[in-house]
């Protein structure tokens, strides 16, 4: 044990002595590890962000969107979900503790006195706040009576409040929505921007009945249906049941594609992670290539170094170093350098990701995982590419080493 430590102390000394070799190897390893660090942190950041969003979306909920995927792809908004569908789902799914139909109208003009704003109006049933786990900061949520009576009341997103009222008090005031006077009953908490760039706070929420009749002139169709289930573990199962149930209700024959789409938290995560995926792939490639290059730089510089230090190896062998001691020393030199490179790379990675988050609002999350991944990879490079030079050094014949 102490012998191995003795040998490794020689590795440390050589790392200090051969500064040029050390710095070249260190820099090339550091660049590779830096990009690997950013990749791991970015992937973690993407997942973390995705899970945060799912927590808002509701991990126990699915969203049914009317219209087939094909129609949506070409920008059409088919209406296929009916109020009757909503009632049928409510009756047939005992595990569904919330069934919320929603409808939406885009680009609706709203105004308060001379302040005008164009926004997105959501038609919801009662308990919008509870259904979307989206707290009301001021005032109160929509009630059953509001919905049943088709009342002219609204919850406002903070963006709308800012545009219409500035710093003024909105609760109880009347705003004009597409020519109809509507009383503000509540304000939703600020949610910011989605990863796709939509401002969540730029919306007006009104009873679904009011929106359908008075804004859309619609009696039958809703655009979205939100369903929350009590047993989250069986969500995938419920999702499939719901899909088959709606197909049956819509009389879709086998082979015909769905005329609606069911979205679960899983799909949201996949979508959000795919957003960062391309950058991760690019960085991954860069990181992998630069680590490979770093490895070859290391191997070549070490082979040169072994040649240069033939006499040293001969002396060590003469005074009693075994082949194993020599191999351990050179391998130790390689691993010490790559470890230092790994640490430097981690620091560069942190700085680099600061730039990334600043420039691209990229979600980055640093944890011990990024650190561990970098460290393990740097060891792998050190051992992998240090083996050959170390073997070359250990196989030198002491007589020739001394003579040379």
């Amino acid at each position, binding site marked *: 044990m102490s*012998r191995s430590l*003795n040998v490794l102390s020689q590795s440390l*000394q050589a790392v200090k002595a051969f500064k040029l070799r050390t710095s070249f190897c260190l820099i090339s390893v550091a660049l590779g590890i830096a990009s690997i660090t950013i990749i791991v942190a970015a992937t973690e950041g993407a997942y973390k962000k995705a899970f945060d969003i799912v927590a808002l979306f509701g991990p126990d909920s699915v969203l049914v969107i009317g219209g087939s995927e094909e129609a949506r792809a070409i920008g059409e908004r088919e209406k296929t979900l009916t109020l009757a569908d909503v009632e049928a789902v409510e009756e047939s799914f005992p595990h569904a503790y919330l069934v919320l139909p929603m409808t939406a109208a885009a680009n609706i003009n709203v105004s308060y006195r001379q302040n005008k704003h164009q926004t997105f109006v959501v038609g919801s049933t009662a308990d919008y706040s509870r259904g979307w786990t989206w707290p009301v900061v001021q005032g109160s949520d929509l009630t059953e009576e509001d919905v049943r009576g088709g009342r002219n009341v609204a919850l406002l997103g903070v963006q709308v409040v800012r545009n219409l009222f500035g710093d003024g008090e909105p609760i109880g005031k009347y705003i004009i929505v597409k020519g109809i006077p509507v009383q503000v009953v509540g304000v939703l908490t600020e949610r910011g921007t989605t990863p796709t760039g939509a401002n969540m706070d730029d919306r007006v929420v009104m009873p679904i009945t009011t929106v359908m009749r008075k804004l859309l002139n619609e009696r039958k169709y809703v655009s979205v249906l939100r369903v929350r289930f009590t047993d989250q573990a069986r969500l995938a199962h419920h999702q499939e049941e719901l899909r088959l149930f709606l197909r049956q209700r819509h009389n879709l024959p086998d082979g015909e594609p769905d005329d609606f789409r069911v979205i679960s938290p899983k799909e949201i995560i996949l979508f959000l992670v795919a957003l960062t995926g391309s950058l991760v792939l690019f960085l991954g490639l860069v990181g992998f290539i630069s680590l490979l290059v770093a490895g070859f730089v290391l191997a070549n510089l070490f082979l040169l170094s072994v040649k240069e230090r033939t006499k040293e190896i001969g002396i060590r062998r003469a005074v*009693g170093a075994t082949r194993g*001691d020599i191999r351990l020393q050179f391998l130790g030199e390689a691993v010490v350098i790559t470890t230092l490179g790994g640490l430097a790379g981690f620091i560069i990675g942190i700085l680099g990701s600061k730039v990334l988050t600043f420039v691209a609002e990229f979600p980055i999350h640093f944890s011990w995982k990024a650190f561990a991944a970098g460290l393990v990879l740097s060891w792998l490079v050190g051992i992998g590419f240090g083996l050959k030079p170390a073997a070359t050094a250990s196989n030198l014949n002491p007589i020739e080493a*001394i003579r040379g």
Partner: protein
Amino acid sequence: MSLCLLEDIKKTYFLGEQEVEVLRGVDLEIPDGEFAAIMGPSGSGKTTLMNIIGCLDVPTSGRYVLAGKDVTQLSDDELSTYRNEHIGFVFQSFFLLPYATVLENVLLPTLYVDRSKWGDTQKRAMEILSMVGLKERAKFKPGQLSGGQQQRVALARALVNDPELVLADEPTGQLDSNTAAEIMALLSAMNARGKTVVLITHDQAIAAHASRIINIKDGLIV
């Protein structure tokens, strides 16, 4: 008692197709405590003989008993350990590690030991350094020393593990005559303290310090 006993040592090198017999049956006995000089012209096989005596090379045939053990049967690792314990080397061009200090150079043989027989190897190395008169230079790098001083560091390195045999290969070849005399005096002093010293040289004046001169010519002792 003999420290080194060589019986019918032969060494053949293969240069492509050609077979070169460098040692052609060397019989040699070096008693414990002797100061011997091996002399011979270049190409006589004296370097090969030194490598074999120093356990750096193994003979093609024959028997070599060093300190009571037939070393021709040892593995590469066992030979390393045997060199470490029983032989100290002094080379013509000193062979110190340029990036290590004088003290670290002297300590080199103590690193390759599973368990040190010196409680405090640093102290041991400093004692030897003061014996060769370089205690004050312990923190210097070899490049800051004169040739004679460097060779004295090499001598200290050869002694640090207290080997029975000191093998000196042309130890004065790169030194002026005054410094050479100093080094030879140190070797004689080591011999007087009981070390067996084997000197390899082609210089009559240097060989004269030894108590026995062994001449080698064409791979045979003459």
